[in-house]
């Protein structure tokens, strides 16, 4: 789902052409396109750095957490999941909709982590660190565009 598919779906349901308001919304989406792509490429190229710096900061704040317990598998899966979330945010930024993030990253994820005995509080903290590190790399304008996606994710993980 993106802004475009949403607009088409609602127009199709009422058997009408796209209204001017919808066209305007899509036009805005197009105009913001270069910005979205810029954000996406920043996140893509700096993924490793974001994840590493973010985890360091996370371990400073929450030293007692499964990923910092010395178990290499836990550490690696923690890093993997963080990279995974950065990727989902890239998808969401590009389509301009939370749908990819919600469908894969948020629905059921809380239960998954609970069953893996990962404390949700720490997870939220890790995502916050991720957000901070990612936003520090961008201009204020780009940061304000991408921040809501991180916030949505954090909100969805709140215990």
């Amino acid at each position, binding site marked *: 789902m993106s802004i475009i598919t949403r607009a088409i779906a609602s127009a199709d349901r009422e058997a009408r052409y796209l209204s001017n308001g919808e066209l305007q919304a899509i036009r805005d989406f197009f105009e913001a396109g270069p910005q979205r*792509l810029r954000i996406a490429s920043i996140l893509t190229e700096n993924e490793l750095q974001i994840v590493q710096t973010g985890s360091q900061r996370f371990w400073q704040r929450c030293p007692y957490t499964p990923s910092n317990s010395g178990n290499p598998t836990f550490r*690696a899966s923690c890093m*993997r999941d963080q990279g995974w979330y950065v990727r989902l945010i890239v998808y969401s930024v590009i389509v301009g909709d939370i749908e990819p993030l919600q469908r894969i990253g948020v629905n059921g994820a809380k239960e998954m982590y609970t069953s893996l005995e990962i404390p949700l509080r720490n997870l939220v903290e890790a995502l916050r660190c991720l957000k901070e590190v990612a936003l520090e790399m961008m201009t204020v304008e780009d940061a304000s565009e991408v921040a809501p996606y991180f916030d949505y994710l954090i909100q969805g993980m709140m215990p």
Partner: protein
Amino acid sequence: MSTTANGGSPVVCPQRYHTVPTTVITQAEQQDRYLKRSELDELASYFSSGAKLMEIAATLTQNAEAIVSAGANRIFVWGAPMAYLEKPPNRKNLPGYNVFPRQRITTAPQETLKQQAPFYPVYQDWINKIVDLGRSLLDDKDPVPEGFSPINIRRYGPDRMKKSMRDLSWFLRYVTYAIVAGDSSILTVNVKGLRGIIPEDVTIATVVAMQTMKWKALTYFKEDAEAAAVIKQHFDQMIADYQVAKPTVLLRQGVSNDQQGLQLPPSYSSAAAHRPKLVMKPNLSATEKQDAIKAAYRQVFERDITRAYGVSLADLESQVKGGMISMKEFIRHLGKSRLYRKEFYEPFVISRVIELAFRHFLGRGMSSIEEFQEYFAIISKIGLAALIDALVDSQEYADYFGEETVPYLRGLGLEAQECRNWGAQIDLFKYSALIRKVPQFLTLFGAYQKPLPDQHPYGAGNDPLEIQFGAIFPLENKAHTARPAIFDEDSRRILIHCGAGLEKGASHSPNLGKAPGSLGARVLRFNRSTMTNGNTLNGKAPKIGQNTNVNFSSSSAEIVIHGAYRQVFGRDVYDGQRQMVAEIKLKSGEITVREFIRQVAKSRPFRNQYWESLYITKAIEYIHRRLLGRPTYGRREMSHYYDLCARKGFYALVDDILDSPEYLETFGEDTVPYERYITPRGYALRGLRGELPIPKVASEDQSNNGFHSSYKGMDYTGVIGVVPHFHRALKQVMPQSAISIKLEEVKQFRAEMAQQASKQTLVDTEESSESSSPQPEAVQPVEAAHPQ
């Protein structure tokens, strides 16, 4: 077919068509990777062309009527086809319709133009027609298909005309959508297969109309080659899709009786057609081979194992890359690896292992219990390796994936989905499937063979004793999708029991006839052995112990009659409502108490109160509680009563309850029914709304027959006379802490009670002997537990 089980149905939104961003995202997502440079470039060019696309779409929308009329005029003769075009209802003024401020400004002038149109509709139309025809003859480049002849409107009929015009405007509408989306998949999905739906004899005419519409649309962009190319592309795509004969449906064959044969509508399969299936071939490049291997890992391990676990099966990888083993063998080796055993075998029960293995190696969920049994036999006899061999060597694997294809999830869009494992299968495909340790398919298929459990449709709890009156309980906030445990009358639970010798927690107990004892309900028994005529039950002399008038029973005829009314009606009746004839017969020994209860229950006032004014579930529930002294046992019992009420009505219901073996066993001929037990929640419902009220132990009001004044004004039907006993019973079933909180309160009430007792003169000696004695006993344990 009746539904007997529910696998849950998560909401699914199949992606029916794509825009440029969603296509890119879906492909990247399928391979768990970031966007490639080429994809980013594609997106960038799409975004930069956005303004142009918007302009095209807006122009086409504004001139929609002219374009459609050009198409229609080309193929219809002898009439004004535009008169048959029905406009969609104007929703602008309806509530909830999004009115954008800009829209009003820009559409206003057009609307005024349209309003003028009806004055000369026919002439305008004819003029348009002639002009268009002339122009199209001049610069129409598309060859008109052979065999085209215009359609006579009068012969064609108004119904078909309306449909044709609707379809023509529909085609244009979808072209505008496709232009905005930057992807013609929306056209392909919707137009392919229309040829079979629109009558075959107008196929050529439709194509001609589309060509004319394309030509007309292009006339608005004569100077703009770029826009013309976009329009041309989508119209050509649409025409090509339309000319395709009805596409074949995707069949899924059932291999045996326990598997369904299904077909997938072509629109779904064409929407999913662009999802790449990865194939391992010897002549691929190194990166493509690496992609295929990663896809195999994703399919079998569900996670990116190289990054997470640092595991790399380098040896196997090099073999499959070098063509020494096929992809199928690679998959087989992955399944037999140590990692697979550790991740998907050791943490799970065997049934769940089979379900997960189906997902990994066949890309679907199990479809029947027979299938499960087959594989369960394999894994339990030989082991995991044999299960994986059986799956990989199966005919189905060969049909779908063969030697070279990497297995993939055969989910929505790729294949027709079975309905009987729908919810379970969708759950199985989720990323979070691993957290579910409980086998899902097996329990679902098992549930199909059982009758529907006692479960309220709005609630998760299925305790039959708690599901009362068909009510929706607002406090029910458990997870509704969870499968509740089976509960029936033999399950043990907390019961506030004041009735005949119930075993601990069992609501259904074999020794029903046993007297409740001094802690139980106050039993009113009509002792007919003292009657002058010596009429005894069935002519037999009553047993010893049955006629001994212990202090908890009461035998005076007035008291029995009084108590019977209170039990049946839940209140004292008015004089006019008394059944005088029955009372006299009872007193004279002509009828038994059971017969008396029957006549009271069949009386006009009772019918009014509990039958006519209530809905059927509530009526049955009330009557059952009144006459049999307990709640109903859920669906099994209720359906019996529903049936009875529907066929025979109210009187048969009363007879059925009073003649039931349970009634005879519990109350016999001479005992007035009493409430045997209620559930804690049932008790809570009688208190103030909300939490379980803590009984105020010491405040029994003698003049009000042991009924606490705080219960006044509540629905106390059924509580009368037994509330003190609830206090005592609660003392036994509730944790001490719950009571001890109220210690201060209890002390206060004790003081009050002492004052009252000194003032009060006890009128009824029988009652006082019963209700005053337990009071100190009720308070004692609290103090004993918490010495201060």
